[in-house]
């Protein structure tokens, strides 16, 4: 555990890191970013907390079991969305043209258009949660591992 | 269906199995006409080791290391050479990989 200043700053910064990560995830389909990048940013926030508070404190409220469950759920949602299109083909973008994320943004100069892309933004969110939970789990597991504890399942 | 025809030779497993059964039957019949005065459990079935005392049953099993001893003794030089590259060090595996890729690329580019 590091000094109080570091811990306070880490506490405050975590909020911004979370917001930035979620922003990257949400805008992955119409601007640079995406599920992996956003998830990695959030996981880097977890690394920061880990450094500031030490693995003992974090592990109490970030359980590996829960993180695994979130990662698996994200992956399942992703695959479920892909499977839902199997009426036409696997990975078919069946939401395009519907009221849900169905718009097609006009090409040319203009603001970012979030409400577009069909299943892609939904998939980005699913991937985002998978990566967020998965990378955090890896980092946490390795931190506990190097501190000498055995990892239970 | 069962026959594999190579156009050069024919492999028919069912014919082979039938032949095996027939030959096996002949061999068994032949065997049953052999000497009848062999008895198990008497001194007839005891092990004779040039008069040396026979070791206990557990000691008599030939361990894997001792099987084909002559073969390995004769090929000692070959195995010494073979063991040298099998270091078990992961770096060497990659070294072999790099070397083989380099040679393959050279052969393919020159053959083109």
């Amino acid at each position: 555990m590091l000094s109080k200043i570091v811990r306070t700053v880490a506490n405050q910064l975590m909020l911004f890191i979370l917001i930035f990560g979620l922003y990257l995830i949400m805008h992955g389909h119409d601007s640079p970013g995406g599920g992996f990048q956003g998830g990695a940013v959030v996981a880097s926030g977890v690394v920061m907390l880990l450094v500031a508070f030490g693995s003992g404190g974090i592990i109490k409220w970030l359980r590996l079991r829960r993180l695994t469950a979130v990662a698996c759920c994200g992956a399942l949602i992703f695959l479920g969305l892909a499977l839902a299109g199997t009426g036409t083909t696997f990975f078919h973008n069946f939401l395009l043209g519907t009221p849900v994320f169905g718009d097609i943004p006009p090409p040319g100069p203009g603001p970012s258009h979030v409400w577009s892309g069909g299943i892609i933004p939904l998939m980005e969110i699913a991937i985002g949660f998978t990566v967020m939970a998965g990378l955090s789990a890896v980092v946490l597991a390795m931190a506990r591992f190097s501190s000498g504890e055995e990892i239970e399942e | 269906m069962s026959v594999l025809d190579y156009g050069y030779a024919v492999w028919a497993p069912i014919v082979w199995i039938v032949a095996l059964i027939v030959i096996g039957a002949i061999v068994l019949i032949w065997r049953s006409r052999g000497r009848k005065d062999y008895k198990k459990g008497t001194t007839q079935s005891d092990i004779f080791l040039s008069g040396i005392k026979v070791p206990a049953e557990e000691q008599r099993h030939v361990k894997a290391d001792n099987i084909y001893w002559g073969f390995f003794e004769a090929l000692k030089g070959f195995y010494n050479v073979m063991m040298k590259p099998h270091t078990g060090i992961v770096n060497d595996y990659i070294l072999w990989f790099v070397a083989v890729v380099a040679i393959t690329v050279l052969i393919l580019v020159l053959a083109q």
Partner: protein
Amino acid sequence: MEQISVNFPFLAAVLLVGIALYIIVFRRNLIKLVMGIAILSSGINLFLVSLGYRTGGVAPIYTDVPEGPMVLPVPQALTLTSIVISVAVLALMLTLVVHIYRHTGDIDAKKSRILKG
């Protein structure tokens, strides 16, 4: 001169691959070996992403798009996938190195080896 500047990323990529292979082959320290593989994947990622460069092309983002031809984002997608995969591979490798260190007390490829022959 322009030729050289266009080809510069490729030279850098080949240089990185060469350095990485040198490290992987000649460094017995397992952590350094993992670093070598990380450099190897960076070199190849650099190579892939350089393939997508087109002089005068613009980034393939539909909003706020300037005039001009867009580049095909396939090499970028390939690079991103490759990065994701190498993250997983490197994490796995480091975990295994930690395990090896715990079992044998050494991270030297030669001293920590059990299986051979």
